[in-house]
């Protein structure tokens, strides 16, 4: 059980931006946690929330995989992707086509980010919409690379930009 939870760095957007990168991540923690509240400029209006497209160390090699489970009360679905150039963590943010001033939220947990084995990670989130349909999603993902994680980048899956007031917080956890 983690006994520390330390803010490493954060950014609250004052203007739109396409990508957010946390670089030079210190190697003094055991696990990493990303907490995100975000809205993109996606024009999807069907209530389908945005996705978080995550890469580590700037790697675009096809060594990511993920399983997504999500539902909205009417449908429950599962999607599996392998050997992709990034991890698309579905339905953890919202696009600009849904209720104004709402933001999706998500937590991405990366255990043992310094290990010399492949890096499993997970996320859990909801796409707030203040409407009758709400989505919830859980993602189990893997970055099949043995180097320590020193940076991570997050871009929107459907839109081109994260909108102003989207916020990104990176925490470090130590187990001792």
């Amino acid at each position: 059980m983690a006994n520390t939870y330390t803010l490493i760095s954060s950014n609250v957007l004052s203007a739109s931006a396409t990508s957010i990168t946390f670089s030079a991540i210190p190697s003094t923690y055991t696990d990493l946690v990303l907490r995100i509240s975000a809205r993109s400029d996606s024009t999807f209006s069907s209530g389908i929330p945005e996705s978080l497209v995550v890469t580590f160390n700037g790697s675009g090699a096809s060594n990511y995989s993920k399983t997504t489970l999500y539902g909205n009360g009417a449908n429950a679905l599962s999607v599996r992707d392998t050997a992709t150039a990034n991890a698309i963590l579905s339905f953890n943010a919202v696009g600009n086509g849904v209720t104004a001033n709402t933001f999706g939220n998500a937590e991405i947990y990366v255990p043992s980010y310094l290990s010399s084995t492949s890096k499993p990670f997970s996320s859990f989130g909801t796409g707030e919409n203040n409407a009758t349909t709400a989505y919830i999603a859980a993602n189990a993902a893997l970055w099949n690379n043995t180097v320590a994680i020193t940076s991570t980048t997050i871009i929107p899956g459907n839109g081109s930009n994260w909108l102003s007031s989207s916020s990104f917080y990176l925490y470090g956890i130590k187990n001792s």
Partner: protein
Amino acid sequence: MTMAIEINCTTGETIERPLTAEEIAANEAAAVEQATRTHEAEVKAAADAEAKAALLTKLGITADEAKLLLA
């Protein structure tokens, strides 16, 4: 202009810069992949719902009655 924000966690410095052509291409590829996955999932959900409704009609029972049978 599309901007990238990089936060250096060691120095605390934040850099804002235009995306490179390579980054723009990678983002566009991710968007296409995401749209494909979303479409596939929605098609599957619709097909599953249709098949379920057809089966219930064939059996002549309601969804609630089917739940009772499986409980």
